[in-house]
């Protein structure tokens, strides 16, 4: 973990020294989903004229993030904040509506399937639902062999099965599981298999979308340990999507807090948990159920998260923020770096109305 993990945001990647260059850069990323169906369904008859009307869900609205080599960047936020969309867009499962994604300096969001192949090997994904992420008609052996065969077509049968055996051992899967099917295993075991599949091609970057949310508490610890072991042994970089702040505090190098498709705060984990800045981060942190009995009153937010169809003007949080003023209602706040290595997108903090 480097102390200077947060490079200033404004300038693009410094070329040259590879170690200083972030592994992944996300710039101004936007993703809209159309709600209006196909062309014929968009036509509406209004005021005597046929007009084409389209409505969109604004899942992400201008996200900037950088991920340094070797770190675990956790993205947290409540459902609908766009954190999973960021993960899926980075992995190329969705095409961004605007913005760019650079991997190791190279833009990857506009590459052809062919040109993307080398990057597919270097970046892998782990999914939330272990019950759906394994093909029910394939044995574990087939599941694990498939990515290896795809990315190493020149390997012999023996090399492939050696690799499978190695990766199975490293995630704690017994060798005799290979002939079985996914449904014969429990959720935690399936998640191990899914992690093994991701590790099989020796990636350097892993996007994990809520990888432990569907698991029981005692199993969560096992899988989290496995992910941390893999990071240490294989020098992995993680983009870790979760809603569980306790996991973030334990696992993350840095944390990005998202609200309604925007990043409102990015900070090193210890800094964020010691001194959350953004009003939303503060409310979120105060709501975590704690085991201690002296419970501080949590911050109650006014109202509810607005729908991402009609975005509020200005700061997306202004309607629920106790510190909002006229500027917050009009002007979109940008992420501003602070001395302690954090970046906060809040006018109140920038102006010193809030510390």
């Amino acid at each position: 973990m480097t102390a200077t993990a947060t490079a200033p945001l404004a300038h693009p990647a410094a070329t040259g020294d590879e170690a200083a260059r972030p592994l992944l850069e996300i710039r101004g990323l936007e993703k809209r989903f159309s709600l209006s169906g196909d062309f014929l369904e968009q036509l509406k008859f209004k005021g005597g004229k046929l007009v084409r009307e389209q409505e969109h869900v604004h899942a992400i609205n201008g996200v900037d993030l950088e991920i340094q080599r070797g770190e675990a960047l956790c993205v947290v936020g409540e459902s609908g904040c766009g954190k999973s969309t960021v993960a899926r867009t980075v992995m190329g499962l969705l095409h961004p509506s605007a913005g760019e994604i650079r991997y190791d300096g190279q833009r990857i969001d506009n590459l052809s399937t062919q040109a993307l192949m080398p990057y597919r090997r270097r970046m892998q994904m782990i999914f939330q639902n272990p019950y759906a992420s394994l093909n029910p008609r394939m044995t574990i052996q087939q599941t694990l062999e498939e990515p290896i065969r795809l990315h190493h077509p020149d390997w012999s049968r023996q090399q492939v099965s050696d690799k499978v055996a190695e990766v199975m051992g490293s995630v704690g899967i017994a060798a005799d599981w290979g002939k079985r099917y996914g449904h014969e295993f429990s959720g935690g075991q399936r998640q191990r298999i899914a992690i093994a599949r991701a590790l099989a091609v020796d990636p350097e970057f892993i996007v994990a979308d809520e990888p432990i949310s569907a698991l029981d508490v005692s199993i969560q610890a096992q899988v989290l340990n496995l992910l941390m072991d893999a990071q240490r042994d294989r020098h992995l970089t993680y983009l870790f999507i979760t809603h569980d702040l306790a996991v973030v505090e334990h696992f993350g190098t840095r944390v990005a807090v998202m609200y309604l498709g925007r990043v409102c705060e990015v900070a090193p984990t210890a800094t964020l948990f010691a001194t959350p800045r953004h009003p939303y981060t503060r409310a979120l942190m105060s709501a975590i159920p704690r085991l201690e009995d002296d419970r501080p009153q949590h911050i109650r937010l006014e109202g509810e998260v607005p729908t991402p169809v009609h975005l509020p003007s200005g700061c997306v949080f202004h309607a629920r923020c106790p510190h909002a003023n006229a500027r917050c209602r009009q002007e979109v706040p940008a992420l501003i770096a602070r001395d302690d290595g954090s970046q906060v997108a809040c006018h109140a903090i920038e102006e010193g109305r809030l510390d």
Partner: protein
Amino acid sequence: MSTETSLQPTAALPSRWARFRDSYLLYSFRRDLIAQVSLAVFIAFVACAVLAPWLAPMNPYDLAQIDILASELPPFWIDGSDPAYLLGTDAQGRDLLSTILYGARVSLIIGFGAVALQALLGVVFGLLAGYLGGRIDAFLMRLADIQLSFSTLMVAIVVGALVKAIFGGATFSAYAVPLLVLIIGLAEWPQYARTVRASVLAEKGKEYVDAARTMGLPSRRIMFRHILPNTLSPIFVISTVQVANAIISEAALSFLGLGMPETHPSLGSLIKSGFDYIQSGSWWITLIPGAVLVVLVLVINLLGDWLRDVLNPRLYKG
């Protein structure tokens, strides 16, 4: 390393046969008398049809064996029957039992052939439409709608008439089986395409497909290796119903004179050929093949019902 703690001893891997023996499929089959009887009858039908050349007392296609003097003999339980002809004879003096055995063979060949063609077209189109989506989906599904708005009979009449007009009746008779397979297969593929598309859409949203995509697998492999095997249950279920439908369609076409020629009869053309003789008292020429057809279609439908109940994921998650 502490990950070893999860290396629990696993029980010996059950063999394929043992897994089948413990499966829900076999369990529910054992408890369902109707399914057992239906399967037994259906297997008997298929066996008879396959073994027709050896089982049948005579070859109805062989003109040398036909005795025109022995025409319209009644079946054995009616006075005036000839013990050589167990179920009597038809108007041309062919042994009815032999003709039915050969006819069932033709009906089953056309039924299975047509369903194979339907399934091939429907599965490919359904996979493409469901997985690729967008314009391809819209185009293929509109095509399916158009296809469905013509009835099978209409397609058959038009194609049959065209072939007869262009190539003559003799050519039509010679190629009747492949033609009927083609006609019924083309007319009914949208059933498959729609079912497959619906299950592809459901499977496409699952994370194992996303996992395959992030791996970089080509679309073709994802469609056929990952998604298709997971849509087999509904394909299985509609296949049984479609075989029954295809056999009925063929019978209907033959009855209308657009199907198998009388020299090479299927069950449908047998029914038709006997129809004229009902008035003259020779009811068996029509009714016996008719009963055979009804039983055949019934057992296939009953098997389909049972299969649907077993494979329905809402009733049983397996």
